[in-house]
């Protein structure tokens, strides 16, 4: 596809950036593989994910053999979020670790090594990391693996000193401490947050190799907080108000303008994620949650809400997060994350050990509501079968789909496409490019790629990122 003459070629600087990025992903992959070199799972069917470790560990224990990481042997440092412990030959013949030795906050197993992967931007303060979707199970993203996007690093904020000011076109400007906010009636909801830059490298040609690279800027958590509507009603919104500015307390003092309708409808001031306080990377102690809106609008470290009659035209809603179309005009305030799905198993860089039975599984989501249906093709979109959806299917939330597949060993192209409850069907990347054009930037375009992802399965079982349109 890249030879198509209407699609501009990469300039030298961009090419260098692409190369740097592919190299960084390669290093991450190599590091993961090296971690698994010690065990026998390198020939398994999940060579790059924690999933392999889990299954292999299980098999190894069941089979009475030991893993390479034996007690007393030279041990690599434990993966992030884990502590390295000696591994007994037979855990039934020796007491395990004392209860509560972890100080009362648990860690994951030292054999689980999946981590977020950082996109190699110029600074580490304005950068992003991606969720390893390929090793995820169900729909919840572990809080420590939730994708990140920061523009001025991760601030350290003492919740006892944090407050939220609500002012502007209100009857009574108000100030709330975290303790005040936590006294209001609360709600808990499961929602995905997706960066509108998710997939930005994939417009012109398949670029990154894994689903972590191509789709890892989406994550789902259970969020708890106060409906913004409650707080707005407290302050009393004045006639003529139409927009709200949300501002963070980070070094970017991040700001976005939000339509007031959205604030009344379902916006939340979230202080908790998956049952505990927000993680610092997710806005501790307070973030805005705007179900279905692009991730950048869910302002983290929220300190100020200003009600106004017009949008503020911040840098993030003019210079960035606008979509330049064919003809030179740019779409602005393109908030909604449209319906999207991706197969997470099998996906890029995995290797199927041979013909036979596999369960294809993945995630589907829509910013407009519930996922109604997911179809899966194993022949590059010629024919489709309806996948089963795991319930409960929640609005604006990752939905897990699964479908059995018997691979006959021939090359195959795996695709998923979803439909949401509005009837909207996930398009192909080609259809999106035809409608919008490529904006000619580094990757062809940037935001709001929700096209169908294709994974090519070669006859040797290796899975790669391909572009394929039926």
């Amino acid at each position: 596809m890249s030879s198509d003459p209407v699609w501009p070629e990469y300039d030298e600087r961009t090419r260098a950036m692409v190369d740097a990025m592919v190299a960084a992903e390669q290093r991450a992959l190599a590091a993961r593989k090296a971690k698994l070199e010690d065990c026998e799972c390198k020939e398994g069917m999940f060579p790059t994910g924690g999933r392999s470790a889990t299954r292999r560990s299980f098999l190894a224990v069941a089979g009475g053999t030991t893993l390479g990481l034996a007690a007393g042997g030279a041990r690599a440092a434990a993966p992030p979020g884990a502590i390295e412990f000696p591994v007994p030959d037979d855990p039934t013949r020796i007491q395990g670790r004392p209860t509560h030795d972890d100080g009362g906050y648990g860690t994951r197993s030292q054999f689980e090594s999946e981590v977020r992967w950082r996109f190699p931007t110029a600074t580490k303060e304005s950068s992003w990391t991606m969720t390893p979707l390929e090793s995820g199970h169900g729909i919840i993203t572990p809080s420590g693996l939730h994708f990140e996007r920061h523009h001025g690093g991760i601030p350290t904020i003492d919740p006892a000193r944090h407050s939220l000011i609500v002012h502007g076109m209100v009857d009574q400007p108000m100030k709330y401490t975290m303790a005040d906010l936590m006294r209001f009636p609360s709600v808990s909801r499961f929602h995905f947050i997706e960066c509108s830059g998710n997939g930005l490298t994939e417009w012109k040609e398949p670029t990154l190799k894994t689903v972590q690279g191509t789709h890892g800027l989406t994550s789902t958590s259970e969020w708890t907080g106060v409906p913004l509507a409650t707080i707005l009603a407290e302050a009393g919104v004045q006639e003529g108000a139409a927009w709200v500015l949300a501002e963070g307390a980070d070094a970017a003092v991040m700001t976005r303008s939000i339509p007031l309708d959205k604030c009344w409808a379902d916006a939340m001031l979230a202080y908790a994620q998956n049952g505990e306080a927000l993680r610092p990377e997710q806005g501790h102690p307070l973030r805005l949650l705007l179900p279905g809106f692009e991730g950048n609008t869910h302002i983290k470290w929220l300190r100020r809400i200003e009600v106004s009659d017009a949008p503020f035209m911040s840098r993030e809603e003019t210079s960035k997060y606008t979509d330049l179309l064919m003809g030179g005009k740019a779409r602005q305030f393109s908030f909604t994350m449209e319906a999207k799905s991706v197969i997470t198993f099998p996906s890029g860089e995995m290797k199927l050990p041979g013909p036979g039975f596999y369960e294809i599984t993945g995630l589907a989501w829509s910013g407009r509501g519930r996922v109604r249906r997911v179809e899966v093709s194993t022949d590059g979109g010629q024919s489709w079968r309806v996948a089963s959806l795991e319930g409960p299917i929640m609005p604006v939330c990752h939905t897990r789909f699964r479908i059995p597949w018997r691979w006959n060993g021939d090359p195959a192209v795996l695709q998923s496409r979803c439909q949401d409850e509005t009837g909207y069907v996930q398009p192909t990347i080609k259809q999106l490019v035809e409608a919008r054009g490529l904006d000619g930037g580094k990757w062809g375009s940037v935001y709001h790629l929700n096209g169908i992802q294709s994974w090519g399965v070669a006859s040797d079982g290796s899975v790669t990122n391909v572009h394929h349109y039926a």
Partner: protein
Amino acid sequence: MSITMRDAVAKYGPRACVLAVGLGLAGGALAQGSHGGPYGLGTPATAEEIAAWDIDVMPDGRGLPPGEGGYEAGKEVYTEHCLACHGPDLGGVAGTGGGALIGGRGTLASGKPRKTVESYWPYASTLFDFTRRAMPFHAPGSLSDDDVYAVTAYILAEGNIIGRDAVMNAETLPKVVMPNVDGFIPDSRPDVFD
């Protein structure tokens, strides 16, 4: 006259409705609080507290502080505080994350667009607002308002949007017409619906 939760429900439908039913019940049980709405939590924000954080600037100039600055002063500010990352010619410095601030005018429809303050940004207020809140990257919020006005004037003049004799202040900045002011359209998605 303010919009009540009930008005919001009428206007914004069922999701707000769920919240409002809850609030309605609570409203019956709770007397009007000492501040704001029925819950009476929080404290009124004082003018000083608001002023300390209220740094946003809108295209019509609302929010612009007193002070002013012009090209020559701006050049000094730029050289000292911006040049290292955005370059002597305002073309950006690879590896710093500081991109090009000028150039690229007329390229947006070319298939090889260069998006900069000059070519892409619709409002000059955004340059002032963003610089004041987030730049210089290594020391955000460290410039005086006069310095921010001055460096804004310098960047706009280098981009041939204003003259080198123009002084930027709360009066003049909102009057600056950016080359791409008409370059933005509302979201018209879904693009593909079959």
